[in-house]
């Protein structure tokens, strides 16, 4: 386990420049697709974005009757599956600026995306300092799941916080890592899985250094589920069910089962479920690659973040897996070690353009 690498303060400025250029390329490509498509607006809020808008406008629903946002009014759905950190941030943007909630949600995800690109490059610099920053930036902004930076989804926020937490671990700042972990678990349920990486980090600290502050590490690790716990307490008093965020999955026909069952079902299903299941397999393979490269903690987090959503089905699995910092870092590692693989950036960029088009067309698989 690699720990405690130092950070060169002189690298901050180029890191931000690379991040900004990558962000601008990403935004230009999306704007070009929107312009050429012509029919749908630039700030096009649909699917999950509408759920976040509903949370900003009406708050969390006291009962599941489909009346607060979303596309299934008067049904058995509720917005409890959408974790609070992103709507809190975008709601604050709406409240401070007075812009429409739909625009506030998408604008927040775009700004968070710029910060996420910076955070990812800082994370890459800690875990793979020998790889060029442009490579990491290209892998991040030219991948099909990068569409979710433009759609008012929680992916940019999740990626940013996860990168900050992992970077803090590598810099041996456990309290900061734990605090970021707490925010991560308030952004999405699988965020709590970063505790696995933290446990691997803490264990390596205790084994390597006899004077490691075990109490401090323990406290920092205990901070990670705090966001999830706070949301569960809220749900218990608001809905009567602390696990409502999980139980409401019934409304989307998501059934908790073995990840292997859903994997095999996905591989034998439609082209969409096949691609999603394939993404999960690639995620698992990359976790193995990370473990082989000595990054066992990252591998555990990637496996967790792949297996937990897979346990409820293959729907939307692509963005859950491909927007994981460990997944993206493993791709950067592979492309750094095998230069020929960099050619994959071209089909990857094309698939990002295709996903941008699919979003404007409201095709089902972008949900």
């Amino acid at each position, binding site marked *: 386990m690699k720990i405690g690498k130092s950070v060169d303060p002189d690298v901050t400025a180029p890191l931000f420049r690379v991040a900004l250029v990558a962000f601008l390329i990403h935004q230009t490509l999306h704007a070009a697709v929107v312009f050429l498509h012509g029919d749908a607006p630039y700030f096009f809020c649909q699917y999950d974005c509408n759920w976040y808008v509903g949370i900003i406008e009406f708050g969390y629903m006291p009962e*599941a009757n489909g009346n607060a946002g979303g596309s299934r009014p008067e049904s*058995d759905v509720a917005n409890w599956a959408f974790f609070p950190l992103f709507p809190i941030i975008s709601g604050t943007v709406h409240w401070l600026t007075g812009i429409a909630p739909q625009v506030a949600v998408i604008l927040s995800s775009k700004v968070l995306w710029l910060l996420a690109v910076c955070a990812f490059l800082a994370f890459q610099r800690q875990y793979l300092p020998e790889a060029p920053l442009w490579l990491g930036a290209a892998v991040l902004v030219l991948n099909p799941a990068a569409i979710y930076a433009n759609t008012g989804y929680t992916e940019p926020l999740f990626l940013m916080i996860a990168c900050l937490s992992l970077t803090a671990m590598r810099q041996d700042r456990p309290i900061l890592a734990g605090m970021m972990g707490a925010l991560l678990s308030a952004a999405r349920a699988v965020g709590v899985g970063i505790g696995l990486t933290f446990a691997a980090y803490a264990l390596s600290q205790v084994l390597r250094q006899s004077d490691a502050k075990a109490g401090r590490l323990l406290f920092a690790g205990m901070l990670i589920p705090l966001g999830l716990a706070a949301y569960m307490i809220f749900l218990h008093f608001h809905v009567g069910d602390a696990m409502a965020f999980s139980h*409401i999955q*019934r409304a989307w026909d998501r059934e908790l089962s073995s990840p292997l069952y859903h994997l095999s079902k996905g591989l034998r299903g439609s082209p969409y479920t096949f691609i999603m299941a394939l993404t999960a397999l690639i995620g698992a393979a990359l976790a193995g690659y990370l473990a082989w490269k000595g990054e066992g903690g990252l591998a555990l987090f990637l496996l967790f973040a792949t297996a937990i959503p897979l346990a409820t089905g293959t729907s939307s699995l692509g963005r859950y897996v491909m927007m994981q910092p460990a997944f993206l870092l493993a791709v950067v590692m592979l492309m750094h070690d095998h230069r020929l693989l960099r050619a994959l950036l071209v089909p990857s960029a094309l698939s990002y353009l295709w996903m941008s088009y699919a979003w404007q067309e409201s095709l089902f698989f972008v949900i």
Partner: protein
Amino acid sequence: MRGRSLCSLSYKLRNWLNGWSALALGLLAGYGGVIYLAAHPNVTDAYRAYYIDRTSSLSPVMREAQIDVLPAITIGQTYVHDAPELLLDGWDTPETMHTWTLGSHAQIILALPASLPPQTQELTLTLRGMYLTGAQRIIVHMEPSVARSDVIDRTYRDGEDLVVTFQSISGTKRIITLSLELPDAMLPRNGDPRVLAFALQSVEVAQTDH
């Protein structure tokens, strides 16, 4: 010697418990509380059955909406399994002659007429079951609790009807929910993937003389 080691242990424990560790233990205790809340949801039966136990196919909202428009039955009339007067939850789609229960829980909801005389009623379910093991156990619970005995727990053999005797309900709350627990529900061993117990053929509510 023993006193010294106890002293040392106590020193170590105090040392370990102060500062960060004490805070970590505080958080751990808090998480214990959250797990307790998660294990004790404060929700309606309909919510629990649909979202938590997944034994119901009707969400609380759908259930309420369907109960609102449920036509009242007529005493003495027999209703076939797919009659609009019967709201079935936990049952398969109706077949020509009957409707099968799916899994080990099923409910029948019906609305009694508003002007029901204050007499004892008999609710009779005509069931045909899977009797691969000779007989099947069935546990019946009626809500509101107006049945002669709160829970009926007995074993049925093929050809037997299920009869529940209950007192008439006065007032406006006329909805009766009959919950069936079917612990012997099983796969039919003929390639049918459904977990089956009983097939409902008809329901009748009639007045009794006793």
